[in-house]
């Protein structure tokens, strides 16, 4: 019943089946909108999900996002001219955090017997032309990162991996809030952060991935 709904049967484990009645009520109550599953497999997705094994797939998916974020802040700190002192300090902190996330995820993947995916080539277009453009894309990346972890985490099988993902997503949420404050936006626009399925996340970040 599950496999025919999936373009990639090897991703079947990502799907969570058997929602209970209570689960539906919860979903209604929080309007989480989480859909666990994967659609068509693009070359980018294949790369992000290169390895077999449930938790390793999810960790590699997270690693790809963290690579993207780490590269984004590293480049921004070099390329955006006239960053305010506050934004510079925040961006440096975030860059360091994302780099630590990359290292931790690589170690976790190896620990689980998997092979970490390689860092993707990146292209952030005109995002580094001004501080405003940089912060705008930073907000998108951080909010997407939160939703990506929130969407993938319930499918994690190992309690240790779940703890690691939870520990990282909380930091992504803090980043998102601080970037939003810099932009004069509400740090928490909704009472419930959205959960995005992997495919939706990969589609969202595809414009920034080159090669």
């Amino acid at each position, binding site marked *: 019943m599950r496999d025919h709904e999936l373009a990639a049967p090897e991703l079947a484990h990502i799907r969570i089946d058997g929602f209970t009645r209570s689960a539906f009520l919860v979903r209604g109550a929080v309007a989480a909108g989480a859909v666990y599953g994967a659609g068509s497999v693009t070359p980018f997705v294949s790369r992000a999900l290169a390895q077999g094994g449930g938790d390793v797939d999810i960790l590699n998916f997270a690693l790809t996002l963290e690579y993207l974020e780490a590269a984004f802040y590293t480049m921004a700190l070099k390329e955006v001219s006239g960053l305010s002192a506050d934004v510079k300090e925040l961006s440096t902190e975030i860059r360091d955090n994302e780099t630590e996330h990359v290292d931790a995820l690589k170690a976790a993947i190896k620990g689980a017997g998997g092979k970490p995916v390689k860092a993707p080539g990146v292209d952030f277009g005109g995002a580094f032309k001004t501080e405003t453009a940089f912060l705008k894309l930073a907000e998108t990346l951080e909010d997407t990162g939160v939703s990506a972890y929130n969407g993938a985490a319930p499918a994690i099988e190992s309690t240790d991996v779940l703890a690691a993902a939870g520990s990282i997503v909380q*930091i992504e949420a803090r980043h998102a809030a601080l970037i939003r404050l810099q932009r004069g936006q509400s740090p928490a626009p909704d009472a419930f952060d959205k959960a995005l399925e992997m495919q939706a996340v990969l589609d969202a970040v595809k414009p920034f991935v080159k090669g």
Partner: protein
Amino acid sequence: MTEPQTSPNERSALDDLASDAASRKRFLTMAGAGMAGGLAVLISACGSSDDSTTQDTTAQEPSATAEATAAAENGDIEIVNYALTLEYLEADFYAQVIDSGLVKDKKLVELAKSIGENEQEHVDALTATVESLGGTPAAKPTTKFEDVLSGGLDKVLLTAATVENLGAAAYLGQAGKIKDKAILAAALSIHSVEARHAAALNSLIKAGFKGEGPLNGSVPDGAFAKPMSMDEVLEQVKPFIAS
């Protein structure tokens, strides 16, 4: 705090419940909340399960599997009620802060209101969740924020940051114990919002990203957030709960 001496893969849902019994009792007493009797919970938990084979056999003869399922749902109810109590506390805090008129800055009032609204939505969702699991939602605790409010704006902001960081650490501490994936998804969607609140408030009190200063163990060291156990969190919110 008192983990049974079994390896993680030998632990069952029943072990989890047993190991948390002490903190559960303390928590429920403190929060002034009662849970339905064991049998009632068992029956309603089985009734709300989508596992029809379990449902059919348990009415007369509870099987080991059915008991484990019920225990899992029971554990989830307990966790959701714990979260509910924390959310009640937060929602009530922001309501009192806004009523007190201590906050004058328009932007700050706006922030306090929007965070308070988020917390109230969490209360509503968690209440509905406990009910949907066949449990009795924890009662709204009577809070004790007089000292905080009389301490002025700085104390209010520090307390707000404190409860938000504790809230985030509390959700993180429970994530691995939640059995129902949909409840986990719901908890995660709240966890990251608590983290957003915490970060905003830390920045307001100039606690910095790592929360340097008087925030008690709930703030990340840097790139990784720290979970807190039920006991640790309850110890720190105790001063704010009258009954």
